[in-house]
């Protein structure tokens, strides 16, 4: 009998019934399957490419493109010095981190030791700054033209994507908060209106909405010669909107610095006010002094420098209006489509975030004597934000991803520029690979932020 069981035990060690064995087998099988599929795909692709003589590799990125991109801006192109700059930042961070670990191990408190703070600042800011000054070529800005390379074209596409996404996110957030709060309004009509907006917009494909704005609205605006013209300042036609463009004059930088100083001043004043309130319970006036600081000081500098900004107005010269700020119709349509669509999604996020804050909280705040606006600002919104921010970030990612729909109406973002290069150079695999990699990097960054934020929120809860 005993022999038999031993026998069985041995068999079971390598038998199918042993979970460990099964797990290893499963994993090996899946690696083999995936590896085989990848290998076959690779083989086939290489065979197809060589047979047809299709070019491959990334050297095409340096070839002159020859075509125009309708919206360009100066974009940074990295120089060799960039590597040392980035590494100095990393080294600085690591050094500061090690320092902290080392100090805290010795049992000292971190905040109290001002030498530690100074050293940290030195490592994090001063070291990179010195490297920056020494290498002086971290990047150069270049503006794309027909004579530029495919590579610069792609970078320009990336920057157009960014330009689209940032403004899209801001507008969508504004619309979203506005509508989301309106949905909870005590005014029945306003709440219903907001609900109607959300229910209509979020059930229609965003691409259709973009087409609608582009083809049915902007396209049908008057032609250049019949433009809608408000005193030569604000002009609308089917080639876009024209606004006065502020161009900085020489004295502009001092003004910016003054503005910055004023902001810092307000910040310290607020801290002071809070400290006084914490200590004594006395509430110092906040609003008016802050506004005074913000307006008076920079205002004086502004006047002293003789208004260092010039507005350039759009003028009809030859074919088009020139000068002035001119978002293109494609940009405008994308912006409207994205911000209105994602605004409706964000509105829902905001609504459920606010509803997640228990009514008890609100009642408690009111019982403490806080009035309407303050309850919202000081109690509800901060708590709701914790619920709102994770889905909000994924909406931002959504805006960024949906900016790729620009390809459908000729807005030159990454996918669209990439498509043109794909056709001119024939290197489909490389282009699609680069495009996906860029988006992946963006979403990775956003999810890293999300994880960090969630961690931080957990700590606060304790």
């Amino acid at each position: 009998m005993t022999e038999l069981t031993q026998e069985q035990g041995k068999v079971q060690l390598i038998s199918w019934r042993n979970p460990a064995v099964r797990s290893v087998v499963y994993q090996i099988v899946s690696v083999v399957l995936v590896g085989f599929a990848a290998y076959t795909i690779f083989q086939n692709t290489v065979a197809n490419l060589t047979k047809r003589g299709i070019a491959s590799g990334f050297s095409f990125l340096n070839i002159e493109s020859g075509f125009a991109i309708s919206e360009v801006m100066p974009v940074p192109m990295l120089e060799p010095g960039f590597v040392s700059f980035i590494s100095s930042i990393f080294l600085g961070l690591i050094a500061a981190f090690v320092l902290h670990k080392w100090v805290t191990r010795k049992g000292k408190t971190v905040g109290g030791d001002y030498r530690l703070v100074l050293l940290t600042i030195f490592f994090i800011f001063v070291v990179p700054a010195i490297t920056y000054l020494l290498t002086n070529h971290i990047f150069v800005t270049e503006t794309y033209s027909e004579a530029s390379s495919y590579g610069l074209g792609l970078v320009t596409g990336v920057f157009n994507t960014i330009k689209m996404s940032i403004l899209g996110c801001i507008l969508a957030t504004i619309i979203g908060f506005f509508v989301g709060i309106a949905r909870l309004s005590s005014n029945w009509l306003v709440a219903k209106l907001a609900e109607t907006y959300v229910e209509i917009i979020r059930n229609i494909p965003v691409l259709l909405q973009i087409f609608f704005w582009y083809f049915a609205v902007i396209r049908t605006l008057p032609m250049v010669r019949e433009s809608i013209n408000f005193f030569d300042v604000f002009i609308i036609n089917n080639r876009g909107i024209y606004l006065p463009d502020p161009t900085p004059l020489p004295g502009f930088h001092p003004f910016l610095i003054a503005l910055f100083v004023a902001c810092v001043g307000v910040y310290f004043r607020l801290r002071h006010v809070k400290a006084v309130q914490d200590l004594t319970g006395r509430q110092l006036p906040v609003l008016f002094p802050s506004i005074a600081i913000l307006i008076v000081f920079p205002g004086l500098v502004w006047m002293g420098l003789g208004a260092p900004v010039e507005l350039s107005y759009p003028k009809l010269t030859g074919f088009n209006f020139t000068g002035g700020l001119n978002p293109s119709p494609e940009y405008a349509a994308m912006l409207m489509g994205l911000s209105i669509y994602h605004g409706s999604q964000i509105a829902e996020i905001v609504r459920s975030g606010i509803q997640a804050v228990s009514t008890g909280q609100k009642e408690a705040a009111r019982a403490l004597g806080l009035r309407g606006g303050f309850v919202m600002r000081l109690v509800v919104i901060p708590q709701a934000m914790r619920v709102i921010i994770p889905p909000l970030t994924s909406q931002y990612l959504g805006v960024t991803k949906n900016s790729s729909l620009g390809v459908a109406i000729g807005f030159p973002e990454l996918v669209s520029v990439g498509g043109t290069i794909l056709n001119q150079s024939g290197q489909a695999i490389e282009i699609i690979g680069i495009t996906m990699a860029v988006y992946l990097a963006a979403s990775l960054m956003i999810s890293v932020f999300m994880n960090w934020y969630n961690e931080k929120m957990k700590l606060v809860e304790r």
Partner: protein
Amino acid sequence: MSGEIIGAVPPLEAGPPKMNIGVVGWIRMNLFNTWYNSILTVLSLSLIYYTVTSLLNWGVRLARFTGVKPEDCQGIDGACWPVISDNWAFFMVGTYPYELRWRPLMALLVVVALIMLAVWPRIRRMRLYQLAWLVSPIVIFIIIKGSDTFGLSQVDTRHWGGVMLTVILSVVGIVFAFPIGLMLALGRRSRMPVINILCVGYIEMIRGVPLITVLFMSSIMLPLFFPEGFNLDKVLRAQIGIIMFAAAYQAEVVRGGLQGVDRGQEEAAMALGLSYWQSMVLIVLPQALKIVIPTMVSSAISLLKDTSLVVIIGLFDLLGIANLVLANPIWLGKMFETYVFVAAIYWVMCFSMSRYARRLEIRFSAGDR
């Protein structure tokens, strides 16, 4: 109804202040309770008035509904609805051959009939009926695509379009993405590192990129992956892209459900001697999937909206047909009518589904209590 009940309750305490009851009271309470609410109400009312009247003027009062010739719309300030009625079949089935249009209609009837039959629980429980659902996709495919054995002439997928294509892409997308997503979700939970990494990698990669790049990949790169002479149809390639994309999102939906099921359930099942698959199929998944059915419906809505992106790779789904109609010089400038109509179709489909999802949600949360 509720009025009766209120009336039936004897006024134990002092009733509400007079001004708060009745229509006038309600209006006062909800629309004019503070000065800024009054302003908001007036603003909203004028906005509603303006929108509704201008829509009615454009769409009904000043519009032209009949007429076959586009010239019938000359000099009309309102909508020109013949652009819709004239191209109706086009919007529904795309460039599907004119004389064969009864076939998509047949397919539609099959589906409608099956859904109607579901109203009777008796029939719903019949084996035959369930079997009919199972074979219906094949039947529908044969009806639409055609088959020489059944004497139905083949219709190339290039002629599939309009609402038909939109619905096919989304339904097939969801149906195929679901099992793949399920496997991916289980893989993501798996303790086997290799399988875990593969699944997480796939899910995060697909979710990190826009659908249009996945579609480009499936329509441009996929053919290069296969040996020469092996050819996938354009619609099929788009469908593959959609399935690949939807699977990653389905995986996350299912994962949400799995997280909602206590690990103890699985451990208990294992302790009872059930194998991994038995415990999954019999214990864990039924609970997990029940939780996520509403989420699944909303991801189906997203997918339906997302299929509109196939216009960018040159298919003529509902949105593509809209652009095709507008490219016809005869219907030049009828953008508003066309896009409003197409938006209405999408809206009806998505909105009814989202209502359905909400009903399910309420039903399930009620059932849990």
